[in-house]
């Protein structure tokens, strides 16, 4: 177990370096940040001087090396556009994204799981095909369209929820939370719903197909033959065995949601990391882009490692191997 964690830790370092390296090779094609930083009337010499000061004229490997050295000192640099420390910038945006993703995941688990189990064991053909049809819609509707639809219905027509923003936030140390105020909750409903829609349908379809598979196995048949109560049959034996792939996918999805809530955050003007990332790309804000990518790869690794550890809890066979 310990050796496994150490192995993972080494992987983390190499993966983050690899991600940073790839992003640095891409920066060469992103365009020039200097034009956005200087007024229109700046002279060519002033432009060159700024490029030199920012180290943009150095070869790519040199720039990458400087980034790694600074990273080791815990220094992410200053955002070209926002002109503040990049680490603070990400720290400031992180709570918004994590809260949004957490609420979205809770919604999708609360809705997706029961729906999946129900659709695996239900005999109601009409309802079943209706749910299957809706889930197909959920998987295929792009999230920006869903977001705009939600805004039109719930903020423009009904006026129940605000169309954008995070509402009133409370600061608890470094963490800013919107979950302590009514306006914060009202603001999070629409973006979380639009973000969770894909995951609800994904979980539902996955649970259903896994359940159906497990239900066909011999030990379920024997359990049935032994006369075990249906409840325990479905939930203790069938569901538990169907869980493993679901946990993997949900874990991967959470990482994806954190990294790529970009569309949802843009549509709802949610002040999270996705919005920051889009802005950084627009303004060729190299310090922000590189720090963000490294940070996201860290999140992915942490989540995947936790998923692997969860296997131990769910599947007793893992402990032996």
């Amino acid at each position, binding site marked *: 177990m310990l050796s496994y964690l150490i192995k993972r830790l080494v992987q983390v370092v190499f993966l983050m370096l690899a991600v940073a390296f790839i992003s640095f090779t891409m920066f060469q094609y992103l365009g020039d940040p200097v034009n956005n930083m200087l007024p*229109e009337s700046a002279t060519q010499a002033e432009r060159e001087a700024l490029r030199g000061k920012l180290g943009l004229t150095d070869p790519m490997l040199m720039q990458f090396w400087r980034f790694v050295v600074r990273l080791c000192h815990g220094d992410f640099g200053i955002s070209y556009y926002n002109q503040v420390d990049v680490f603070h910038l990400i720290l400031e945006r992180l709570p918004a994204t994590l809260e949004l993703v957490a609420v979205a995941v809770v919604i999708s688990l609360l809705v997706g799981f029961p729906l999946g189990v129900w659709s695996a064991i239900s005999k109601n053909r009409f309802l079943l095909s209706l749910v299957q049809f809706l889930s197909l819609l959920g998987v295929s509707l792009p999230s920006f369209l869903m977001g705009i639809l939600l805004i039109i219905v719930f903020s423009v027509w009904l006026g129940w929820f605000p169309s954008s923003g995070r509402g*009133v936030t409370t600061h608890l140390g470094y963490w800013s939370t919107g979950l302590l105020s009514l306006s914060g909750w009202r603001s999070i409903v629409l973006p979380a719903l639009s973000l969770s829609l894909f995951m609800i349908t994904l979980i539902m379809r996955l649970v259903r197909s896994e359940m159906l598979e497990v239900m066909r196995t011999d030990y379920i048949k024997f359990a049935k033959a032994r006369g075990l109560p249906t409840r325990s049959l479905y939930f203790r034996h069938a569901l538990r065995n169907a869980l493993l792939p679901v946990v993997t996918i949900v874990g991967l999805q959470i990482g994806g949601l954190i990294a790529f809530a970009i569309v949802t955050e843009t549509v709802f003007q949610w002040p999270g990391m996705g919005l920051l990332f889009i802005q950084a790309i*627009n303004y060729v804000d190299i310090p922000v882009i590189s720090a963000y990518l490294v940070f996201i790869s860290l999140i992915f690794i942490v989540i995947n490692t936790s998923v692997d550890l969860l296997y131990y809890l769910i599947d007793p066979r893992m402990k032996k191997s």
Partner: protein
Amino acid sequence: MKKFVLPLLLTCMSAHTAQAENIVRWAVAADIPTLDPYAFASTTALTFQNHIYEGLLQRDNDLKLQPTLALRWEYVNDTTLRFYLRQGVKFQNGDDFDSADVVASIARVTDPDSGIRANASTIKDAVAVDKYTVDIHLKQKSGIALNELSGVMMMDKEWMTQHNALKPTSMSQGTEGYATNNTNGTGPFMLVSRQREAQMVLKKNPTWWNAAHSQTNIDEIIFKPITSDATRLSGILANEYDLVTSVPLQDIDRLRKDDNIQTLVSPSLRVDFLTFNLRDTLNAGNVNGKNPLKDLRVRQALMMAVNREAIVQKIMRGMTTVANTYLAPAIPGYDVSHAIDLKFDPAKAKTLLTEAGYGDGFKLAFDCVEGSYMNAPQWCQAVQSYWAKIGVKATLTMHTNSVYNQITDNGKTDIAVLGWANLPIMDAYSISVQLLHTNDNSGFGMFNVPRYSNPKVDSLIEQSIPELDDAKRVSLLRDEINLAQADLPYMPMHFEPVVWVAGKKLSVKQSPDNVVRLWYAKVSP
């Protein structure tokens, strides 16, 4: 516990909204990256900061320069401007405003790390004469020093010293500046809270020097950046905002039908241009060893081939007018009698091309940018198809802003898009020096993308710079621009429209410089 928390929160929130009576919720497309008034030369940033900070002199609602923190000024000699400061002005933290603050501000704005240094290009330094008199020295004799100074907002020396912010934020040294997130101005509003990308709240400054004669009754401004066009539009329809200063043109017709809002549309100072590559070689390849664009008849033919009126009606939705001059009417030097007279006439265009020896047409590299100029991708496509009808095959490529700038900087294009508003100085000096003067890499012709060069034009510009008699100066610039217009290095398309949407209760004047001055706005009950 839960039962107790919810009502408590509700009362907190309702108490918050009851405090201020006249609230203006103002939505824009992008947040202000920094609150430091010397950091970022964008019109939206300076517009917002101007609610907190003020200059020695400022433009009023009719775009006239008015004494603000200075009462009056005079030229002591050709390169020294003496300012007599208003007394009794206080910064929002209670500090007095005096000549030391002006000296510190001028030193800060002319610092090599200052982001708006080029907006104060003529200013050398400032020296205090006494507590309320200050001399500003100019680098050379210049007729636009006052225009430039109107964009320099005054900061508090004691406050900057206390927070180690006497120098602007330096990206290269990697230090975060205090003034990026904190403000202390003399202006009509003060910052209450800032949540990046979400909202900023300003409230009325009760100790504003002009409070007794204040023309506004606004108590609170909530500034909301909303990136997505669709979301901003939904917010307008759901009455979530009182003022929206970036509205997509295609939605205006729909918004006009809504009785709860007023739509304000007018042409701005910005003229959108196409540039003609006048270098010796064409990027798309020369014809018989020559660049056809160097022939004036070809440039005229290209302009006549485009139905700009149709583009204004269809693509700009009739919200503006065709531009036949390089300057907008509000800029001194505008001369309608010398407007370019090349109306849509494809047959004549074809004849001109044949006369010039290019009857079989030729190829052009056409580069257009997304997101910088209003509806540019659409009207670029329209121009491309008009040109195809007279046999000119332009290969159109669409770019993002950061990549596009590299292409125009390096001259890797034959036809490019460029918009010029002559802001913040609002003077023909800007377009003359940046676009029309020969590019000499020392500050002249920085944005002369065509690499246009006419010695007569250059000499008129250079004569106008040290001219202190405004009438003479403007007449020199007028002659110079008329000369350049006849040479046609740029093809003017139209004035970019300013489009705002406001709630019925807010009375706000839309000015062609697209600057919001809420200290002149009123909310009716």
